[in-house]
């Protein structure tokens, strides 16, 4: 199994390299340098600035310089926030985004699997249809619509929770995590329901029933393992979804995480910050996928021996 993991790891390296390269060259091609906004600067100052940021060197050299920096976790200085390096900004925002993201993932997975299994056991009943419709709702309505609505209901109308902001206290975390979890709960419960229904119909579950193991053992030990595989595989893309969702959530709730930096950087043409966050996200997703692969191979013995 170690070999399997190492192989997956090796495959991700060229992918990461490609992400860095693509981000780098795409942004360099983009029209308008970072200093266009500074029309007050004279040509000499511009030249000096360009030199200081190495923008006058040929592209391949710039890329090499950048790559070297990345390997040392140095993404260069932010073009917009001149006092800060990109690494500082990322590491300031990351713990916050991470906390919200992890909670959202945990909650969506637990509730989603539970609801999905429940719906599968009570297939075609009223419970089943309720769960499925809620599922559809959760997936169809985007977070940038639901987030303000939660703010409206729980923040403004009921006054139970703060509408936005961040002070580390739990009140500020509830709505963002809720908004981020709901679409995933919906997707995971639908997926789990489908695959659990199939698993419950499978031959090996029939054998478990024939052995007189009873509902609890049959479901938890025999049906669940196979039934959860597709959901497990989905957790990889689900991470990507949470990452994308966090961008919206942080904007809607004014949370100082990396997502907010990313969007602002994109608006401001802060190249180094954009590149830094993109690469960072890329690494995050690659790691998440590796973890998912690991878990998948733990459940499915056939995968381990490939």
């Amino acid at each position: 199994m170690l070999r399997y993991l190492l192989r997956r790891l090796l495959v991700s390296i060229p992918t990461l390299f490609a992400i860095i390269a693509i981000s780098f060259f795409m942004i360099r091609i983009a029209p308008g340098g970072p200093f266009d906004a500074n029309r007050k600067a004279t040509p000499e100052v511009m030249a000096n600035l360009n030199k200081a940021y190495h923008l006058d060197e040929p592209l391949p050299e710039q890329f090499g310089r950048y790559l070297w920096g990345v390997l040392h976790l140095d993404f260069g200085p932010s073009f917009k926030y001149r006092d800060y390096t990109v690494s500082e900004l990322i590491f300031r925002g990351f713990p916050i985004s991470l906390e919200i993201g992890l909670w959202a993932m945990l909650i969506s997975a637990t509730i989603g699997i539970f609801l999905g299994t429940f719906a599968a056991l009570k297939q075609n009943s009223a419970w089943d249809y309720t769960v499925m419709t809620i599922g559809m709702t959760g997936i169809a309505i985007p977070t940038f619509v639901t987030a303000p609505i939660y703010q409206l209901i729980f923040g403004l109308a009921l006054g139970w929770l703060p509408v936005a902001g961040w002070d580390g206290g739990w009140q500020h975390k509830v709505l963002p995590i809720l908004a981020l979890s709901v679409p995933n709960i919906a997707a995971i419960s639908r997926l789990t329901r489908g695959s659990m229904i199939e698993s419950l119909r499978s031959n090996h579950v029939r054998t478990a029933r024939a052995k007189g193991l009873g509902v609890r053992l049959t479901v938890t030990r025999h049906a669940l393992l196979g039934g959860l595989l597709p959901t497990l595989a989905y957790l990889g893309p689900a991470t990507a979804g949470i990452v994308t969702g966090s961008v919206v959530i942080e904007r809607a709730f004014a949370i100082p995480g990396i997502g907010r930096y990313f969007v602002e950087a994109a608006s401001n043409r802060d190249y180094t910050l954009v590149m830094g966050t993109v690469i960072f996200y890329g690494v995050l997703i690659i790691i998440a996928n590796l973890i998912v692969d690991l878990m998948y191979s733990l459940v499915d013995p056939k995968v381990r021996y490939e």
Partner: protein
Amino acid sequence: MSEAAFELIHETDHGATVAGRSKLKDGFGRMRRNKMAMVGLVVLAIIVLACAFGPFVLPFDPNQSDFDSISIPPAFAGGHIFGTDDLGRDLLARVLEGGRTSLLIGVLATIVAITIGISYGSVAGFFGGAVDTVMMRIVDVLYSLPFLFFVIMLTMVLGRGIESILIAIGALLWLTIAVIVRGQTLSLKHKEFIEAARAGGMRPFAIVRQHIIPNTIGPVIVYASLLVPEVILGESFLSYLGLGVQEPQSSWGTLIDGGAQAMDTAPWQLIVPGLFLAATLFSLNFIADGLRDAFDPKDR
């Protein structure tokens, strides 16, 4: 139907003559029985018609500010059924116009994605070898980051506005279709009728065009129906972040962004466009589900 019963009824009465029914008719028949999909179709039709013909029916111009009627809540009285925004523009007119933008982008991008995806996927799958390997590598890399991140980066390069959104989304949307079509092509490639065509001297590109592509349309249509809401969602997402459609044009994304900011004083500015977007996405998803159920009955 239980497997047991199916096994029993499987033996047909070979005495009776069976009239031929095309798979397509079968599928659409099944779909008509799917209530939710039909509801979705109706709702979608209403929204599309409203966005298309609304401007000719409504007395208000979406860009006409009326400073006498700023931020009026919804009321049948003054004629502004859904109220006005902070510049006095009729909200319904704005929403319908925004809808036109969103829907148009959704359909156009999907069509472009299908065209590119089918061509590329069938060629890659059919010719195999180096072409196939290179393409799969590219797809792997582009899958490593969320779709929208690449789109955002592309908009940085291409600038803002509708055209760049179309290009950015289109540039990434065709990937999954290509993967699906490639997979279909790979399994079709070895079927006998393809061999027969080859033996008959048909040129490769002609085979691809006449035999492979028509047989891949099925799954593509089902997936494409999922793409339209994805595009609309993507565009709204970008516009909400301020990276998409720009003033004076509007789309549901920009309207929702504006509405969210005015949430505490004029919540209808958020709710109305939000409802339209949600209803559209719902309908499209139900239709997509219906299509998938209809053409792949195992998956119930």
